[in-house]
């Protein structure tokens, strides 16, 4: 037993609670996705429902492996990697927009040649943008209200990436933009600039809408949401799932609505969770996301440099906000968006990027733990605070 514990401590560095939450999500995901897709796979006549079970489990494991590698890398390297990621994602996004594979009338996917795996450049762009934004914010903390040096470069990247994503997928672009604004708010960018950016964003957003492929979908979805008299088909089915789930749920694998809800293993997985595991299951999932966010936030107060804290906050907020939006859609708090529920929905390569994001958060918490350990051993506790400022100054000067 102690052996296992020792091995875990040696190999799984970083916040143990965060590890626990991720493992819990993975198990729930396997259970619910298998239930949600099982009857579909069966009805489609292939018969082997296990195929999806193994495929999904395999992808989760691959995600965890990426997460493990990502958490082994010192998070400071990500600052440099992020710029490469950004520079790479611009042509990839353009390529996907022009030549991507079409799913539901919007091209979002690129097929990677040799392994024939589809991949969404927006996943890469999202990760890179948040990391880079955290890096830029931390480097410019001392002159955060300088328009020319601070605001303009940030607005450039945020606007470019979100705009490109919005060409194909408005909700993802919009959500990323809002997450970036939140990160800027946390990173002490003055409110007046944030407001200004939101205004610019609104203009750019409607422009890319008009240019992009999803204008009509967006309008009809918002119209549907606004129309109080009539519930859209998907939402009606979702309500039925939630209502019949009751407090304790119908039990694992007993969902009826999985037959009628579109994408029960992705967009509406939260409704299936409530149907099978009841209000209790639903609350537990919400709680797990909040706990995840809390642990990501703890890193901010513990961090010695602004970059680690902002990075951890940015990534955890990005993930949890998307989760909240997805769940909000499933219970009818917002218009239908088509965003998957991170950590729970079935998905291909996006699981890998989720894994990397969490790996980076863990890396931040790992570095802090190590630093704290070394400082209690060698240095006096008073050094910690000086450390914080000197690190930051070092960051600023290194630029």
């Amino acid at each position: 037993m102690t052996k296992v514990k020792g091995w875990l401590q040696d190999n799984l560095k970083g916040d143990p609670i965060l590890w626990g939450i991720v493992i819990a999500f993975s198990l729930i995901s396997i259970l619910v996705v298998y239930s949600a897709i099982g009857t579909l796979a069966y009805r489609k006549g292939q018969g082997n429902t296990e195929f999806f079970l193994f495929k999904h489990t395999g992808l989760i494991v691959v995600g965890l492996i990426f997460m493990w590698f990502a958490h082994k890398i010192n998070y400071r390297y990500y600052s440099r990697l992020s710029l490469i990621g950004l520079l790479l994602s611009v042509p990839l996004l353009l390529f996907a927009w022009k030549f991507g594979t079409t799913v539901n009338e919007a091209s979002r996917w690129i097929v990677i040649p040799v392994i024939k795996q589809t991949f969404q450049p927006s996943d890469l762009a999202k990760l890179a943008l948040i990391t880079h934004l955290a890096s830029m914010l931390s480097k410019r903390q001392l002159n955060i209200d300088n328009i020319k040096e601070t605001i303009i470069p940030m607005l450039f990247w945020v606007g470019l990436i979100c705009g490109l994503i919005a060409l194909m997928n408005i909700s993802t672009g919009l959500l990323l933009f809002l997450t970036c604004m939140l990160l800027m708010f946390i990173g002490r960018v003055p409110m007046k600039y944030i407001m200004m950016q939101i205004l610019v964003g609104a203009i750019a957003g409607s422009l890319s809408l008009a240019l992009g492929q999803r204008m009509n979908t967006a309008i009809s979805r918002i119209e549907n949401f606004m129309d109080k008299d009539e519930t859209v088909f998907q939402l009606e089915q979702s309500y039925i799932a939630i209502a019949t789930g009751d407090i304790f749920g119908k039990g694992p694998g007993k969902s009826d609505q999985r037959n009628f809800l579109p994408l029960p293993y992705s967009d509406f997985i939260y409704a299936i969770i409530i149907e099978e595991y009841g209000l209790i299951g639903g609350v537990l999932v919400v709680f797990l996301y909040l706990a995840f966010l809390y642990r990501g936030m703890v890193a901010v107060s513990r961090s010695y440099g602004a970059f680690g804290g902002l990075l951890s906050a940015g990534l955890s907020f990005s993930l949890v906000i998307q989760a909240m939006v997805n769940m909000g859609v499933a219970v009818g708090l917002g218009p239908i968006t088509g965003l998957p529920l991170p950590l729970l929905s079935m998905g291909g390569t996006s699981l890998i990027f989720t894994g990397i994001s969490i790996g980076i958060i863990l890396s931040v918490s790992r570095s802090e733990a190590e630093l704290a350990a070394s400082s209690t051993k060698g240095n006096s506790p008073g050094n910690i605070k000086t450390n914080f400022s000197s690190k930051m100054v070092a960051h600023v000067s290194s630029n």
Partner: protein
Amino acid sequence: MAKNIKKSIVTRVRVAFLAICLFAVAIVAKVVHVQFFEGKKWAQLQKESRMIYLPVYATRGNVLSDNESIMATSLPFYRVAFDPTICDEKHFNKGIDSLALLLSRFYRDKSAEGYRRKIKNARLAKRRYIRIHSRQLNYQEKKMMASWPIFREGKNKGGVIFEKVDKRFRPFGTLAQRTIGRITEDKKGSGLEYTYNSYLAGKDGEALFERMAGGNKPIYNATDVKPLPGYDLKTTIDINLQDVAENALYKALVANNAQYGCVVLMEVKTGEIKAIANLGKAGEGVYVENYNYAVGNHGRTEPGSTFKLASMMALFEETNLTPSDTIDTGHGRQLIAGKAMGEATGGGYGKISVGQVFEKSSNVGTAKLIEQHFGTQPQKFVDYLHEFGLSKPLGFQMHGEAKPFIRTPADVSWSRTSLSRMSIGYGLKISPLQTLAFYNAVANNGIKVTPIIVKEIRKGSTVIESFDAQDFNPTRICSEETVKKLRVLMEGVVEHGTGKHVKSQYYKVAGKTGTSWKIKNGKYIKDYSTSFAGYFPADNPKYSCIVIIDTPKSGRIYGGDVAAPVFRELADKAYARDLSLHKPLATRVITDRQKLPPVKAGNQEELTLITNKLGISTHNKSEEEWVKADSQGHSLIWKSNKLMVGRVPDVAGMTLRDALFVLGNQGLKVQTEGKGRVQAQSLEPGTPIKKGSIITIKLS
């Protein structure tokens, strides 16, 4: 300073966290609200179970002739339904009067006011689905209707729903009707449609529907299972020969006022059936394809004289007799095996050769010869019949093949006269197709091949399964020596025997006539079944053929008079048509068949309809409305040419009309150069469209 920065950041993170917490509380609150305050409403909705999965029927495969002409296909028909709640107020009010008038004029069953009230009431009652009329429209009618007010706004804005119903359609009408066959909804039927149903039917899909008063409304859902279209069946039937066979048979049946008749024409080497006609009397002078007499149980009769070929084959296999050896047939009725037997003509032929026995179809001669050589060991004769493959079904590719009935000496019903009676084709039963296969073996140098009617099972132009005479174990049933003797006998029948009617100056025919008494209530009555079986050209057999005319009532009773003319007419036509029998010009025929019309791109439904009319088989690789054509072998394949909103469409290969429609729909202004089909377009396909751009298309 640094401390302040950190403090500020931490505070801001906490504010953001609190905001997220609030949203989380809102989610839980909404769940609680749905469960406890609206719970009953939604649970009730589920109980009503308005969602159902219904089958989406697969398009049935085509039945094709030997040159890919469509003999049976499924054509789309449409029923019109309407969701009156979809159309907006402006369009509805503007269009409803003229729509009601048009509907009233079209269906002629209700006044314009009636239609107007029906639709308006449904709209007021917020009914989401009404069926306008139960009549099924063809494609042209559907297209016209789709241009009417309100309807022309389409499904999503106007609310019109065209429900597709497939109907089986035979472009050649009743031609080969019984062979093509049919299948009912409870999977009963006949012919190829029934036998090959598992291939033709395809696999039905499933889609989610919402139950509504008046019908089920489809919901477009990612969970739908798309139907798999059925496979095509390529038969060996030659439409022209089939037509000749049916006409000749029909004429003969009417002229002889017969009960029923059948004709089968088979290619000697391949066993392919080129024509198979079956007509039964439906009324005075009216004959229809009501049963497959050539194949099925009702056509199985005592074959009579045509069976003498089997007796002769057994005789030549067993002994060293030659056609020129002689036998005394006496002068009238004679006792054979203790029972009197006479000739059909009443008299006697005296001492004649074996060849003449066959030519004149002498019962006495045949029976005497068989009694002489097999009288003491009848089992041996029966063994020969087994060897000739006459006692077992052929394993024909159609459900319901008759089983031959042949007695053996071990049977209780075997008597002293059985052998002599069998030798002239009585006391046993065999179907026309089985007789033909036996005659074909003689034409094919003693190798018996199984007749085939299904050549290929195909998915589009990909062959899934193909059939060949070789697949059915062709076997040698007699020596080549015997074949030579039998051919002399059969040629003699036409040259100077009972089959003089089929004699042609252009080519040589060999065959045998048959006339058998019919049994009614266990007694032979004065009704006959007449037949002629043979092959041509006799020196290099290409086709074998059998004609049966049952119960002729106009006085003529002999196969040579009744059945032979039908044989002659079909043989003439087959000979005249088959250029390979004259000189080798076959290649030209093939290039003609391969020529496909210059269809390149357009609306899938229209193209399919046109090509179906032209008898060209098509294959869908795409569900899209707009497609590009690609030829493969003898058929055309539709490949997707998807239109994307806001992108320049690919109009290459389309007609000007289609191109204008497609480009105009995308908001492009079109300039044209030249005439014909689109060859080039100035804007690259797939690029985003700027409002009001001009596109130039070159036609040639």
